[in-house]
């Protein structure tokens, strides 16, 4: 469904000049430096797959997505999406993809949700019968009825996200790009969105490329993930392997009481003290070997503690550790 071969995008970042005169000069002269936003990426995604595409901010994720949608023309490389070269057939391809950008809505701010959907029906030329059928389906699975007639500006973030999801899927796109679809949502709304995404992928066979900062989105939804950093593909393989390697690891952040004088590392069985900053220590342990419920009493028995936080593994942390410890691609 998506074929990418040695894709590259070089940006020319010009030195920012201030003022109107500066802007004028910026129009003619081309000072600045080259930045490799995407630096030789290859992968392919089969129809019906749901793939996590993650990486730290500025890693090149959105640049890649923009090239896959045809918004951006690459510097070099080959791309085929649904059999089309995106940047040559942007308008044609646009009818075959749906996109949700969690931070921005594609709905009309001051119109009731249903009217935004009707407008999109015309934008995408969806036949009336097909439109009604899809609407009926989504009304049920996304429970839209409560707010279908509410102006988008009055919707909660979770409701708006559901609305955006319908908007992206009304025209039955075989491909769906999701960018942070759960950002800012509470736990319940998150779970509901994930459920729906799962169903859509399973029942409608939509190919999904999912970009997110929330590792839980990936582990719940995807079998495969790609990790990108500094424009290069760092990892392309099963989510399971990543989860086994890093997902089982948790970190307990410990703030010692001021009266506690510890020089060097904390000694708690089953954990390693990996970092220290003043009275704050980071203890790492594996969930499959010891539970937090066992670590904490052992810790408090030995030291006077002021505060504790349990950290889940984050994408940034995983990327950092892949650099530190290495991880064969195709894991």
């Amino acid at each position, binding site marked *: 469904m998506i074929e990418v071969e040695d894709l590259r995008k070089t940006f020319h970042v010009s030195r920012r000049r*201030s*003022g*109107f005169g500066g802007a004028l000069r910026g129009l003619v002269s081309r000072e600045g430096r080259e930045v490799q936003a995407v630096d030789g990426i290859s992968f392919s995604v089969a129809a019906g797959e749901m793939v996590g595409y993650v990486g730290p901010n500025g890693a090149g994720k959105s640049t890649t997505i923009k090239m896959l949608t045809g918004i951006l023309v690459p510097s070099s490389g080959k791309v085929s999406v649904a059999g089309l070269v995106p940047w040559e057939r942007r308008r044609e391809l646009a009818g075959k993809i749906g996109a949700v950008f969690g931070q921005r809505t594609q709905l009309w701010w001051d119109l009731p949700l249903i009217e935004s959907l009707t407008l999109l029906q015309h934008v995408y030329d969806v036949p009336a019968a097909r439109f009604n059928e899809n609407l009926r389906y989504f009304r049920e699975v996304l429970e839209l009825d409560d707010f279908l007639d509410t102006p988008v500006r009055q919707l909660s973030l979770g409701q708006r996200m559901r609305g955006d999801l319908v908007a992206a899927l009304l025209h039955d796109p075989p491909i769906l790009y999701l960018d942070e679809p759960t950002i800012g949502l509470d736990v319940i709304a998150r779970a509901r969105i994930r459920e729906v995404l799962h169903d859509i992928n399973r029942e409608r066979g939509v190919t999904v490329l999912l970009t997110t900062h929330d590792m839980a989105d990936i582990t719940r939804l995807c079998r495969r993930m790609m990790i990108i950093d500094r424009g290069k593909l760092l990892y392309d393989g099963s989510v399971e392997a990543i989860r086994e390697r890093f997902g089982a690891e948790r970190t307990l952040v410990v703030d010692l009481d001021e009266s506690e004088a510890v020089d060097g590392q904390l000694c708690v069985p089953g954990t390693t003290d990996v970092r220290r900053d003043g009275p704050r220590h980071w203890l790492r342990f594996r969930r499959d070997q010891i539970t937090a419920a066992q670590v904490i009493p052992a810790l408090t028995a030995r030291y006077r503690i002021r505060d504790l936080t349990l950290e889940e593994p984050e994408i940034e942390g995983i990327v950092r550790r892949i650099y530190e410890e290495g991880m064969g691609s195709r894991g």
Partner: protein
Amino acid sequence: MRLYYEIARRSFSRHLTYRAATLAGLATNGFFGLVRTYLFLGFYGEESTVSGWSQQDALAFVWFGQALLMPLLIFGWYELALTIRSGDVISDLSKPFDYYGFWLARDAGRAVYHTLFRSVPTLLIGLILFQFALAADPLRWLAFLGSLALAVWISFGMRFLANIAAFWLLDYRGPAMALMFANGLLSGLLVPLNFWPEWAEAVVRMLPFAGLVQIPVDVILGKATGAELAAALLFQLGWGVALMLAGRLVLGMAVRKVIVQGG
């Protein structure tokens, strides 16, 4: 006093960062000045003096008018109304300074910025293009600066009232927009008041708007000297005080409304 000086100074420096907007604004002032110069030259035709104003006076009026637009914010100001909309007004009201003084100080800093970086360059553009005569008497310039400061105060007094109406109105833009249009016509910016029919001039000369553009321009052109000059400045001062009292009165009502209804 020190506090308000600091507020004004900060407001001044904040505006210093908008250099691109300043240049674009100067281009607009310059172009409007150009069009309006030829409009008045066209109207004068062969005449050298109309209603006591020479062609030179008319040209000076056009460019001083363009120069005064920004210090007086003739074209609208919604900053205070926006803080009412966003609710930031509550924290401003509870800070340990005089709310009216806080905004006046900010506005003073802004006006100084606009005088230096918008008025002076606009006047220079006009002078380079048309070489109209400027007053040589330093005392007249001093009187003009005093008149300009009073004009900023009057303009602030009216804008404060138009903005504070947002406490009661759903759409905050209405009063400020109405004020903007009234400013354009009644201040003498579009047509000097001495070109108006006498009865209309007599009425408009009594309104605070006359203190915005007409009086400072009268002062710099030497149309008001001696006792007339003193009367003109007193007129501005009177309106400045009256608007300030009105502003504080309405502010008090707004604060009571906030306390009663919690915003």
